[in-house]
């Protein structure tokens, strides 16, 4: 391209009278791609350099994939008494009562030199002197395999309830019922599991059992559905509130700004947990669990929108003074277009980073409420609900595997924080 570019440069300089010959940098392909790269491309290039954030992104993608296809990844169902049609008893819990409080079963991968995973079945014994129950491994090998049939499960929202009958006249219910109906048609059922006992009726407790003999590992996976989505839904709601109120505050200014800012300050002065508890207790106790779930999310987001609103307001205020916004005004660009085309795109990335950083707060909030017994309640499984079983120190000492949901929360929060960090650094790719 060298000579061609030079020639053309010569042409232009003759035509326009401006000397260009040395002005034309001969660009390589990489530089050319850089020159044409829109904002998102630049952000991705910058984000890519943030190793920890990249790893966190992968972790988060894995977590959400597992949550969406929880039935496939969990060897057993979450709760034998729940979810299923009455005529169907999950075979996975045939040995449920024999395994109450059983510790994790170590998995052996190699048998006689070949790859053939198995676990030893447990037998409950009682110490004759102390009368303490202990589990000892027997010689019975329980063969494990990949893609084995097991308990039936559904992927998708099959269990989304229609509005409660007493609300059937409600306008919102009438609006969302068809939507829910459509969502339900997307769900499908299956009974193949990624990993589990070859005989679906065999006991398999890779992370131990809880006080009614349910598989902690499977429940952990099912619980992620609730715990991980609370964060997303909650942040989405607070995003709507935050952008609307923050935008109003930053764009209108004056007494509107003053009112919103003072409201934010008052909201931020209220301690979270007591208020959540009060609001959670105010919820009707006999609501369908799914509505409790949405209730909790709304409560969480009502208190968490303030951060986002401040960011949005701050961005509007600073952008209003920016030269490129003034330049657009001087181009005669109408106000709405300035906001949508010039202002919003330049802080959207910051908002996304901020959102990512506020998801952990939501997850922690849900866990805290459920842990305290005022958020979600069984039969819904969330990490917080599961941790509720570990509220007693004695339990923690004797059955440490009940703390696993805590580890899951820890990993998730850390991943979101690292991802948020990376996004925040990449959010403004135009400044080094």
């Amino acid at each position: 391209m060298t000579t061609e570019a030079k020639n053309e440069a010569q042409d232009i300089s003759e035509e326009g009278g401006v000397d260009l010959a040395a002005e034309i940098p001969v660009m390589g392909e990489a530089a050319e791609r850089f020159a044409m790269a829109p904002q998102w491309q630049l952000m991705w290039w910058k984000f890519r350099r943030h190793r920890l954030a990249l790893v966190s992104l992968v972790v988060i993608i894995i977590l959400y994939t597992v949550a969406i296809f929880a039935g496939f990844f969990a060897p057993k169902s979450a709760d034998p008494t729940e979810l299923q049609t009455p005529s169907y008893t999950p075979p996975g819990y045939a040995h449920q009562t024999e395994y109450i409080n059983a510790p994790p079963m170590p998995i052996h991968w190699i048998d006689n030199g070949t790859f053939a995973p198995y676990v030893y079945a447990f037998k409950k014994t009682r110490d004759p002197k102390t009368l303490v129950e202990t589990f000892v491994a027997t010689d019975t090998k329980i063969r494990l395999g990949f893609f084995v049939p097991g308990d039936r499960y559904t992927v998708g929202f099959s269990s989304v309830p229609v509005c409660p009958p007493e609300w059937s006249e409600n306008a919102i219910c009438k609006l969302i019922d068809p939507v829910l109906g459509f969502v339900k048609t997307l769900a499908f059922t299956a009974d193949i599991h990624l990993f589990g006992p070859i005989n679906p009726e065999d006991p398999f407790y890779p992370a131990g059992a809880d006080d009614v003999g349910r598989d902690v590992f499977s429940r952990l996976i099912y619980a992620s559905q609730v715990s991980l989505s609370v964060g997303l839904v909650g942040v989405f709601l607070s995003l709507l509130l935050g952008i609307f109120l923050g935008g109003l505050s930053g764009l209108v200014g004056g007494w509107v700004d003053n009112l919103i800012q003072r409201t934010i300050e008052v909201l931020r002065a209220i301690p979270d947990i007591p208020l959540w508890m009060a609001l959670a207790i105010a919820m009707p106790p006999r609501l369908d669990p799914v509505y409790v779930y949405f209730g909790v999310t709304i409560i969480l987001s009502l208190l968490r929108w303030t951060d986002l609103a401040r960011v949005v307001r701050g961005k509007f205020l600073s952008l209003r003074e920016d030269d490129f916004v003034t330049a657009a005004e001087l181009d005669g660009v109408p106000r709405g277009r300035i906001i949508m085309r010039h202002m919003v795109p330049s802080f959207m990335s910051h908002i996304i980073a901020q959102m990512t950083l506020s998801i952990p707060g939501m997850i922690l909030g849900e866990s805290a409420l459920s842990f305290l017994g005022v958020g979600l309640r069984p039969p819904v499984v969330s990490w917080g609900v599961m941790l509720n079983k570990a509220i007693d120190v004695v339990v923690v000492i004797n059955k440490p595997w009940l703390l696993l949901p805590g580890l899951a929360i820890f990993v998730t929060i850390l991943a979101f924080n690292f991802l948020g960090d990376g996004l925040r650094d990449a959010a403004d790719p135009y400044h080094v």
Partner: protein
Amino acid sequence: MADTLIDVKDLRIHFFTDEGVVRAVGGVDLAITRGKTLALVGESGCGKSVACRALLNIVHRPGKIVSGEIIFHRMFHQSSGSGSDASVDIAELNPKGREIRDIRGKEIAMIFQEPMTSFSSMYTIGNQIMENILLHTNLSKQEARILTIELLDKVGIPKPSRLIDEYPFRLSGGMRQRAMIAMALSCSPTLLIADEPTTALDVTTQANILDLMQNLQKQYEMTLLFITHDLGVVAEIADEVAVMYLGKIIEKSDVFTLFNSPAHPYTQALLKSVPKIAMTREALDPIKGMVPNPYSRPSGCPFHPRCPKAFAACKTIVPKTTSLGLHHTVQCLLYEDVTERQATEALS
């Protein structure tokens, strides 16, 4: 040489970024004469600031001093006269070590373009100047305070005994720069490095600050290294001038020679292209093109793509430093025997 304060030899500073290596300073030789004012001139990105930071060994990551020597000929006042054996290679020192910290702020001081960023807004002006004094001398707090007030007075700050307790943001740009100079002078440095100290200031303030710096230089018998892009300021203040382009010193001479008979085509073009106040309205000759991208430096002479006098050899042969007079050196093939260079190049 006895009257050389700092001798920089083949200094190379590279920046290791994700996009590649930037050779910010690519082999600089520079001798700073004791008691004189040396102006380092160049456009943004030519490496002049980085090179000067290296004199204090404050080159931050991803930058690194790759090679070269910075010999600092220290002179101690107590040892009568010659301090020839007290020289130290600054480039060799541990950037966080004791030795370099003793030099920084005491023997070599630096002032910056935007004094606001070099003062902490959390402490008063006086506090920050006194801290430097207490760090490098044995004075008591009370004595340090008196000295600080004296210094503030000396740099032309009105009512120094009151302003000593002000916070930096309360001062105007010019006053802050004066305070910055006071801080730099607090330990009577032998070398004062001024990195574009007047660029952010208005012309009238700039003129006052330049006057002040010249007076103080005489008073303190300081050596002044003045970094600027403004040739007018150079003409005003410099004894010697070094012109930098893309990490190299392409010409160095005394200020009169440089303005009267510049040798390097870049210097010539630069002088011709600047609008001057004492000039009628006439078309100026700009230097064509732009400063190249730091990642893709031209081969041969770095200036050849923009040079009006470039010839074929300029594309391949890197010019060496040629001496044109007593204190006049230039890096340009116009002043070299090109055929000889080509011959040696061909041999090796």
